[in-house]
């Protein structure tokens, strides 16, 4: 039997940096599963649709996949906006949706058929604030890109800051395609009380802001979001990336993990296979799709080709190691990850290393 799985990724367009690795990872993984004999003898068929990051296309594709291709589940979309638009469709048609987008809104409030694999933004924010607390930082500036990712990041940071006694003195949203942010940096720098800057965005702006801050000779601690988790961005920021602190899954530091870490084996294998296949470094984004396929794999193993049973099976998954962390779902928690899925990393000599505190 062939089990059909749909996928909606932004392989092109503004969110291609997410959708590209996700689509590649999903394809690679499904191939691997099929090569290994499929799931209980059934083969998986992955139908990937490129939404280009447009919600209207995602909606059209979701309907198409559900009705026409009669897929068991949908992986993706890559962005929060798209995910929110098809959340209802998946719910109405009782098709499992495992989103690869960050926004917490996707699984909170919980819709019974909708899951997501990336760590919650709130965890990232908490991790950052914890680190700040350790460093005694109380007054910060928040700058984000005008993407869905940036938007939810800003919301979470603003929501959680008071819990850690942190005050946000300035908040700014810049264009995702910004080519230079030195004016913004000048503005922030002129607010002398600022003790740290948190940047929550995606390529290429997160490297640009790092450069611009350092170029003005401003020596504030710079925090970034988990979107920074790609060695390519460090290379792009070069010298300016040194000392950036950010929360991230363990993928980037896989080989430094302890042998008994449940994620280690899988991460090392994924990174190796991805690198070999696509000749580029694996990133946290691909990991989201990895987890989505992996979770489905586990659920189908238990439940077979049945939408409702698969849903139940996902909710029952406990302690499943994945790329982003160890998943334990429940009817109330459709993300399944804990705060512990993040570690704080920093950049040292152009490499990611665990942040030890200074």
């Amino acid at each position, binding site marked *: 039997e062939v089990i059909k799985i749909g996928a909606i990724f932004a392989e092109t367009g503004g969110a291609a940096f997410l959708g590209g690795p996700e689509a590649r990872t999903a394809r690679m993984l499904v191939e691997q599963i099929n090569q290994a004999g499929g799931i209980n003898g059934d083969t998986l068929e992955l139908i990937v649709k490129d939404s280009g990051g447009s919600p209207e296309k995602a909606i059209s594709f979701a309907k198409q996949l559900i009705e026409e291709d009669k897929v068991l589940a949908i992986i993706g979309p890559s962005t929060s906006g798209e995910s929110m638009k098809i959340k209802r469709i998946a719910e109405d048609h009782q098709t499992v949706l495992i989103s690869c987008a960050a926004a917490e809104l996707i699984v909170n409030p919980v819709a019974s058929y909708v899951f997501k694999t990336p760590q919650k933004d709130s965890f990232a924010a908490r991790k950052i604030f914890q680190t700040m607390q350790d460093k005694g930082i109380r007054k910060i500036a928040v700058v984000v890109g005008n993407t869905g990712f940036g938007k939810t990041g800003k919301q979470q940071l603003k929501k959680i800051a008071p819990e850690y006694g942190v005050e946000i003195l300035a908040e700014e949203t810049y264009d995702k395609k910004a080519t230079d942010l030195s*004016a913004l940096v000048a503005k922030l720098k002129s607010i002398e009380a600022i003790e740290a800057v948190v940047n929550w965005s995606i390529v*290429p702006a997160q490297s640009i802001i790092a*450069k611009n801050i350092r170029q003005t000779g401003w020596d504030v601690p710079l925090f970034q979001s988990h979107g920074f988790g790609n060695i390519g961005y460090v290379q792009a920021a*070069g*010298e300016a990336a040194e000392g950036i602190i950010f929360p991230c899954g363990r993928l980037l530091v896989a080989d430094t993990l302890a042998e008994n870490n449940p994620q280690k084996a899988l991460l090392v294998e994924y990174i190796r296979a991805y690198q070999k296949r696509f000749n580029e470094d694996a990133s946290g984004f691909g990991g989201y799709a990895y987890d989505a396929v992996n979770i489905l794999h586990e659920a189908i193993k238990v439940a077979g080709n049945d939408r409702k049973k698969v849903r139940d099976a996902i909710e029952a998954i406990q302690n499943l190691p994945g790329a982003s962390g160890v998943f334990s779902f429940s009817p109330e928690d459709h993300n399944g990850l804990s705060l512990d899925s993040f570690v704080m990393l920093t950049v040292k000599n152009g490499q990611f290393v665990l942040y030890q505190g200074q």
Partner: protein
Amino acid sequence: MTVDLFFQYLFAGVTYGSIYAIVAIGFNIIYNSTGIINFAQGEFVMLGGMISISLLQFMPLPLAIIVAVLATMLVGALVEILFIRWLERPSVMQMIIITIGVSILLREVALHIWGESIRSLPYFYGNEITTFSLGSVHISPQVLWVIAACGFMVCGLSLFFKFTPTGREMRACSVNRTAAILCGINTRNMVTFSFMLSAGIGAMAGCVMSPITYTQYDCGTGLAIKGFTVAILGGLGNSMAAVAAGLLLGIIEAFSVSVVPLAFQDAIAITILLIILFIKPHGLFGSSEAARLRDF
């Protein structure tokens, strides 16, 4: 606002402005010889950056840039020869739409060649955090490179168009092609030449700005829109005006940061542009007389 901050904004504005201007110049060249706006100009910028980055593995930086510029000029010539040269009697609208098509095509090709990841050339001098300080104003050396390249190109081109026969002939082609033919000018070669020239300038721009702005397969579109804006704001066809307009727009953008949320920066800048256009329908420095005589 402190004096320091003022200068820091000013310099940020100059940085943006020269980047916009350098793209706008490319628009003006093709406009001057064909009367059309080549919407694929942004892609030339992208190609210049991408090609030089790829070549950097095999050769030193200056050589990589030169080869990339030449390669992009070749692409420019190819675009013209494949899509434009053999058209019997193209209308302006047809040309605009073809160049939009070419721009999308080049972008998609780049996506499938280079992928969606960002790349950049290394800083020509120093590295990411090197700066010169003038008082407490910090300037990245690469910005100076951009400004210098921009100034150099503008002066060179203005002189070229104003004073050299070839420049005059290129302008003639755009004003009245039949008459240019009747003067014995090989109009087709002129057009090809202008595509090469603007592709080369675009590529050059792509190289000098790559360390600052990074290069990605779709970075051309945004730059093209800004460049187009600036070219129009200055008055089409006038490169000196484009630089002035570019600097103006850049500085408006930079200073707008200090008063309104950054998220509205573009909206503010473009609103100002529109207001200027309504008051001066042919750009800040454009002559309405010349524009009226040119039929679209």
